[in-house]
């Protein structure tokens, strides 16, 4: 009954696929120590950071690309990537008026009008295009509270002590292949510091856009939440439609001190490639939060709809006693998309708690995997975890996979895990139809209900976008 609808759904185009004509300042293709020195010099970086990058690069050359994820892709030629591309502009803009109007138009087209956002929604945005951060809004308002929210390069210049102390403290240089690569060549990103006892009054947001061809985007985000602070952080991403694959290897580090609470939300909508699986972004991201202090909390929420391949495990290291971690995820794959995503919850401290809710939806020829680990170490008295990972299948050519690892070394731990896989119930659709709701709306209703637990975790501004995105991809696609 659903063939046409599935076809209609699978033939839908990516709506952020346009490019902008902005002049770029780029490094030559390829990766070697020279390029790293070039990037570092471009960014006017201190000596220690260059050393750090070179160390990471040397580590990387000794590492092997991981083969364990449940994804398939042709080998990546790391010498065929441009590691630095920046929109050409005279100097770092002081206010939005100085920003290249083309750039502003780009973000407006994406629905993130920086000017408008500044006026209306009260979300502070750091916009990153290709390799560099182009604009950060609301800086002054935040500065009054002592909050530092700026691009990573600016932080390196203005707050080197903080950067030096915390960079790599959560995701070490040699953590994994892509984290090492990122550490060597990262070009920009966002930096955020919330001082002791401050509750950040607005959502902080970074918007990533890959524009130039053949470039890789390697950004780095560092969030430091000092004692008793709170921040909610949003991240969004899009890229133009190109036939070749582009690499996005980001690192996000969150450091939460005593009683701090960080909420990190992502709506990932990188270009997923076309119907035949041509093009699209390889999204190989390392995201990790460290609950260093007692009673700290880190909460990850992600809505993953884009990317040809997603390889991403936002994790929490629950080191502080009574700290807690959360992971809420909706991952949608269609056509030839492949997603291998999940989380790691490492319980180290006493009384640590974690909660995992993962909802996968796969359609077309896509493969959607949940891979997660709950590890309770010996010292973690009274640790508690609840995991739920559900998969919804639409069409008979897609796959849904679950790889949960549960390692318990403490006998007072309570660990629960459950997973289900099914298609949308025909009886549910029938029930709706019987009450005068047409099939399309019924499916939208059911899918929304299915993903609700995760969507409700998103901040208002994002929840709307995410719901639209879900509705766009899923309405009427009955399995």
């Amino acid at each position, binding site marked *: 009954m659903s063939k046409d609808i599935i076809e209609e759904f699978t033939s839908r185009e990516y709506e952020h696929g346009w490019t902008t004509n902005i002049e770029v300042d780029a490094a030559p293709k390829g990766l070697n120590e020279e390029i790293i020195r070039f990037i570092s010099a471009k960014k006017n970086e201190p000596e220690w950071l260059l050393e750090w990058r070179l160390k990471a690069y040397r580590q990387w050359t000794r590492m092997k690309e991981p083969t364990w994820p449940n994804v398939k892709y042709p080998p990546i030629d790391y010498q065929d990537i441009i590691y630095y591309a920046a929109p050409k502009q005279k100097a770092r803009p002081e206010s939005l008026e100085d920003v290249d109007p083309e750039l502003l138009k780009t973000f407006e087209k994406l629905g993130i009008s920086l000017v408008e956002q500044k006026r209306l929604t009260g979300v502070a945005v750091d916009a990153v295009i290709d390799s560099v951060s182009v604009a950060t809004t609301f800086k002054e308002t935040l500065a009054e509270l002592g909050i530092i929210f700026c691009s990573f390069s600016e932080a390196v210049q203005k707050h080197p002590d903080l950067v030096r102390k915390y960079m790599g403290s959560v995701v070490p240089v040699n953590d994994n292949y892509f984290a090492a690569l990122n550490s060597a060549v990262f070009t920009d990103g966002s930096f955020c510091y919330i001082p002791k006892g401050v509750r950040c009054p607005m959502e902080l947001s970074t918007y990533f856009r890959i524009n130039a061809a053949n470039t890789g985007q390697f950004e780095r985000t560092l969030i430091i939440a000092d004692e008793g602070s709170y921040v909610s952080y949003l991240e969004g991403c899009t890229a133009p439609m190109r036939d070749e694959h582009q690499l996005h290897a980001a690192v996000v580090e969150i450091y939460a001190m005593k009683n701090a609470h960080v909420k990190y939300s992502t709506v990932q909508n990188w270009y997923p490639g076309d119907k035949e699986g041509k093009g699209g972004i390889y999204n190989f991201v390392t995201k990790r939060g460290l609950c260093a202090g007692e009673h700290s909390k880190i909460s990850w929420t992600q809505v993953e709809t884009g990317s040809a391949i997603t390889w991403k495990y936002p994790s929490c290291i629950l080191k502080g006693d009574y700290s807690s971690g959360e992971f809420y995820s909706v991952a949608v794959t269609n056509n030839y998309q492949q997603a291998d995503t999940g989380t790691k919850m490492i319980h180290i401290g006493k009384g640590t708690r974690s909660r995992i809710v993962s909802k996968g939806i796969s359609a077309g020829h896509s493969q959607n995997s949940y891979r997660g680990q709950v590890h309770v170490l010996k010292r973690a008295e009274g640790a508690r975890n609840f995991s739920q990972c559900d998969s919804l299948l639409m069409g*008979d050519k897609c796959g849904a996979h679950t790889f949960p690892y549960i390692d318990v070394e403490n006998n007072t731990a309570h*660990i629960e895990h459950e997973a289900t896989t099914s298609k949308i119930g025909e009886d549910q659709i029938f029930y709706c139809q019987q009450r005068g709701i047409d099939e399309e709306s019924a499916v939208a209703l059911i899918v929304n209900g299915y993903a609700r637990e995760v969507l409700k975790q998103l901040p208002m501004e994002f929840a709307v976008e995410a719901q639209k995105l879900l509705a766009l991809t899923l309405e009427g696609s009955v399995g």
Partner: protein
Amino acid sequence: MTTNAIDTNPTLLGVSSGAIDSIPSLATLRDETFRHLQEVGFPGPKNEEYKYTPLTRALEKLSLDDQEGTGTVNLADYAIPDLDATVVAFVNEKCVTSLPETEGLIVKPLQEALSEGKGINHFAKIVDAQSDAFVAWNTLAWTYGFYIEVPAGKTLTKPLVILHVSDGAVRKAARNLIVVGRNAQCTVIQMFASTGKGASYVNVVTEGFVDENARLDLYAIQADMPGQIQFNQTRVLQKDNSRVNSYAFTLGGKLVRNNLALALDGQGCESHMYGLYLLNGDTHADNHTVVDHIKPNSFSNELYKGIMDDTSRGVFNGKIYVRPNAQKTNAFQSNRNILLSTDAKVNTKPQLEIWADDVKCSHGCTTGQIDEDALFYLMARGIPRSTARAMLLYAFAGETIDAVSLPPVQQYLAQRVSQRLQRNDF
């Protein structure tokens, strides 16, 4: 699966003396398997399948030099009371009972059967000799085991018990092939035991073929085998409307690895897998199960429970595969664990891999401890703490025992488990 080649010379592990050498028609298989094993070696600690179970290392460290057998094995010690069964017993590699003569049923040493061409179509076809290094080693090294054929339409009233006793330090490999014809039924119980506390290494591979409308009940009871390292691989291929019940009870041993795989290559199949691992001391038990739904409309259900005390470690890995055209599959899996001591560990990985959309699949797993409220409830009614504890643990473990279809076996297991639980040292 990537295998880390390591420096374990397969000949050191006794490859050169297997029964397969005497069967000319299997010479190619032997050579290929040998080459393969030499190439990949035994799995190292980085191998995903053996990540938590260092079987290779345990075997490398195993010393089998100075332990004499007792020479006297009393088979009655291992009998299941009231069970009217056909028993064949092996002490080390030697059959110490006469071969059963059940009408219509063929039970023969596998070597003899294969030499006559019987079972040659199934041997090493159900279990892929190259899928696992220990299976490969078994293929090269097995010296005893049975070919069991239940002809079409035949229902075996008496279960067949194969008793594997290790006396003293031994290293041995056994291979069984069970072929159950159309509309036939049979029950095979494999029991493992070792005398004394000495080290031994037993590698058993059992292949099963269950034809249309047939039924096979398989038991593995690993109870009285202190010091034993065991690798036990079972794979059963099921045809239309067949049914397989598998039971694995691990109550002892030093290091036990059970690989159970059911391939549901037919419609309307039903498979049930029950397992209980009740571990103490430094026992390490690992259950890897795979249910492969190849055709539509089948049902599988799996329940594994574990209780770990002292420094023991339980590992569970359950995979459910649903192939692209296996629509209308219902597959369920549950793994529940209790840790009793601060040094006990459990690693569990329930895994679903699904390529068909019209399915209902679920898995669940929990790890916890005895419910203090329930304990208090019982104690408030005058039941001593230790008894209350045993009752609660039995209630937890009993679910797998209740599923046993043969009453005498059920009683035997119930008694053994509750005895263990009542002993305060557990």
